[in-house]
């Protein structure tokens, strides 16, 4: 087991010993701009979905109020006259 750990340490040192790449000065700014764009896009999508849902709800309410589909439809024929 210890030899295995030693191997791991060896490779870890190899990785750490590599020269560090230079971080570009505008990395944070570029990432922030991109992140802002993603946030804006996500907010726009959320807004659009909510708008569609709200519009659907309003449309349904108005339609239901106007046509009253729960009311029994009026009879089309008069009942037969009996008992005279």
């Amino acid at each position, binding site marked *: 087991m210890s030899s295995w750990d030693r191997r791991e340490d060896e*490779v870890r040192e*190899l*990785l*750490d010993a*590599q020269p*560090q*790449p230079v971080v570009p000065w505008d*990395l944070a700014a570029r*990432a922030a701009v991109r992140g802002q764009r993603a*946030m804006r896009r996500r907010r726009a999508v959320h807004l659009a979905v909510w708008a569609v849902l709200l519009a659907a709800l309003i449309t349904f309410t108005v339609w239901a109020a106007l046509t009253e589909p729960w009311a029994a439809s009026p009879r089309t024929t008069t009942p037969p006259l009996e008992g005279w």
Partner: protein
Amino acid sequence: MGKRRVARGERRAREFEAFVAGAGGRLLHAATLLTGEPPDRCEAAERLLTAALAGTYANWDQLRGEDPYERTRQELAARFAHTAWRHRLPGPPARGLLAQLTPRERLVLVLRLYEGVAEEVTAATLGLPADRVRAICARAISTMRARSHDETGATAKPPRTAPAAPATPTTPAVPATPAAPAAPVTPAVPIAPPAPPTPAGHSVGGPVS
């Protein structure tokens, strides 16, 4: 409402800048190791890291105490796994330290050794069984050690010449997937291990014992 949002945006920008100033170097190093590029020419690593940091920025308000470094690392690993086919064969001029490993070996090696992520966590991140992660890591370590031995000239028993077992293809795909935890992260499945440098034979139990 508007004022509060502006204030929050400013605070986020400030915190994010401080975070990148502190962790950018280490993250870029990890990204460079992942893409297998040399440290002085790491365009792909920069692109990868920028995308991952942008994801962290977009979720900054939802972190709720979570470590942004960990979050970025996860994002980096996921994005690399998605786009790994692009990094499979870096051209001859752009060869870094890990260029001879497969993308998945690089990913496991960087997460396990460079970042020190636990084996189970790595397995869950990549959507692989833990055994498989251990096997990949062992193979990558053997390859790296063989290479460093070759370079230094000290050819003290390169582990590559281990007695090749009867052509058992290196633990193929592990049918025992029930061991795999539910992993929403898309694993690096499209990577077919080319594995010409490591013929076989580095079974999991071998180096451990």
